[in-house]
């Protein structure tokens, strides 16, 4: 066991999906979904990963759990490299690293009642010895997650979206993990339900000492739950820092744009709000722009941005940004 303050460390992780074409299924290119990202997550803390669709945040989360095989790079969990584990070791590791999915409908097998959905893995990992123990354990966890024990025999279609997400959370937490990837865990829910689930996730973190990788496109949610924040754009982490650093002193132009584009609940002053609007659309990750990947949409872009890939500069302790102009702009 390691005693460092970090539970998980991702080093130079890459995940490229091949694009196959033609009758012979020849590889004609790669979608660089995750392209060389590194970060660390502290024990009991939350790293928020924010970005728009296609930026690779979901792929990153799944590759860390080895639900996808990485193209290169390593993920160190508790001092051990996840990708060097044998099948048996990986299976044991699964009890320590869990995931909560976005869609509460497609992530639950419609054929199984809550008991089975939540309890199956307990039996698989021999955490419980018999059905009775499994039922006890399932009831314990689902009541913590805000369901009642009577609901344990029900099937997914008998629940609403928010309740289904509670089942998904119970399923992930039943194994008593240390690390949970929350992949857009609240995005599909109604506004009034979102806040319930966010509070639940925070409560469980306090109670079980969990570390989260919280993936979301919604900055307001990220701000609420994260300790540290990483901003992704086209497979790269363009800015990374503590919540304070990212939200009060954003240094990458993309982070600025995201913050300005996020909704503000201030109709009185909406006419005077300063906001930079991005031109154009997100480029395809199969064919990312040269140099700084953001240069095609960046209002501050200069020639150097088209030619050279910016290095990841440390601006402040723990605050990194990938931008040539990081010290000149803001």
């Amino acid at each position: 066991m390691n005693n460092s303050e970090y539970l998980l460390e991702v080093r130079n992780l890459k995940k490229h999906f091949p694009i196959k074409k033609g009758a012979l299924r020849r590889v004609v290119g790669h979608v660089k979904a995750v392209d060389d990202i590194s970060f660390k997550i502290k024990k009991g803390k939350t790293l928020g990963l924010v970005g728009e669709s296609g930026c690779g945040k979901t792929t990153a989360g799944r590759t860390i759990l080895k639900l996808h095989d990485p193209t290169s790079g390593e993920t160190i969990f508790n001092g051990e490299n996840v990708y060097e584990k044998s099948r048996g070791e990986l299976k044991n590791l699964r009890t320590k690293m869990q995931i909560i999915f976005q869609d509460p409908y497609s992530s639950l097998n419609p054929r199984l009642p809550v008991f089975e959905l939540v309890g199956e893995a307990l039996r698989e990992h021999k955490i419980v010895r018999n059905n009775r123990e499994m039922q006890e354990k399932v009831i314990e966890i689902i009541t913590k997650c805000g369901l009642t024990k009577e609901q344990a025999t029900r099937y997914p279609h008998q629940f609403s979206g928010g309740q289904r997400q509670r089942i998904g959370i119970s399923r992930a937490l039943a194994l008593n993990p240390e690390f949970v990837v929350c992949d857009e865990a609240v995005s599909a829910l109604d506004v009034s339900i979102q806040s319930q689930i966010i509070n639940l996730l925070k409560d469980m973190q306090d109670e079980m000492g969990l570390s989260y990788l919280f993936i979301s496109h919604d900055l307001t949610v990220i701000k609420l739950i994260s300790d540290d924040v990483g901003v992704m754009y086209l497979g790269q982490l363009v800015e990374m820092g503590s919540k304070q650093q990212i939200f009060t002193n954003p240094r990458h132009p993309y982070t600025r744009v995201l913050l300005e584009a996020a909704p503000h609940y201030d109709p009185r002053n909406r006419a005077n709000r300063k906001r930079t609007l991005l031109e154009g659309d997100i480029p395809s990750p199969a064919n990312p722009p040269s140099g700084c990947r953001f240069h095609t949409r960046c209002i501050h872009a200069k020639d150097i941005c088209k030619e050279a890939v910016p290095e990841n500069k440390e601006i402040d302790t723990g605050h990194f940004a990938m931008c040539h102009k990081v010290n000149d702009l803001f």
Partner: protein
Amino acid sequence: MNDGMVKNNIILKANKNENYFAVVRRQFMKNKLAVGAFCVLGFIILLCIFVPIFSPYSMQIYFAENRLIPPSPQHWLGTDVIGRDLFTRLFVGGRISLGIGLLVTFINTLVGFTLGSLSGFYGKWVDAIIMRLSEMISSLPFMFTAIVIVALFGNSIPTLIATFAALTWPGITRIIRGQILMLREAEYMKACEALGINHFKRITRHLLPNLLPFIIVYATLNIASVILMEAALSFLGMGVSPPTPTWGNLIEPARQMVNLMNRAWLFIPPGIMIFLTVMCFNIVGDGLRDAVDPKSRGR
């Protein structure tokens, strides 16, 4: 510990929470047309089983003096050219026709399931070989190929069953392959992987139960089309050979002008049976499809 909770045993009691199949059944029962068709099918099958057992006539015994009697109290559906009772023969024929349909579908489902799973799970070259083979078979003209095979190997019932099965397996194989490819990517399958559930259980507990409804629906529709194929082949005289009756060779007399013009009782009842059975199977199949499709069930 939580003994109070376990003691009161709420959790072990079966209650009215329905599982998936109960929901499908309830949904199916709402479709009055499909339920009606299901009952008609049941009735036809019962007749096919029991009429030949209790009939005073044998399907083989014939009396030359009873040739071509129109429907009468002794012979409800009349007699044929050599004096056999048509009511009896109609339901003996039903046994053969339905039997061929069921057996061919059973083989198809088995073959389709095996090949479709191999194709869907392994992918790569296994998938390529199976899919190219199924494309080749589906591009053969059915009637022509069937007639050639029957001409080469004779028209015994086993040969016919083998022929139909050999020519119709690609359909279900493709459906199963497609479903597996889709279900494999379902998020709950990813969730199982993340939970460390082993491969075998992922397939048997999570994938197959979700595949089953599609297989049942397809099989029901497949029975109908096999019955039609058999009837077409037998009508042309290339199917099951007399004296064994099938619905197909029972309508064969309609090929002769004299029968078509004057002796409607010879071919109309088997024609109606084919029509009714095929239609009922199709309606039941459609009803099942609506019942298992989550989209038609709200969410």
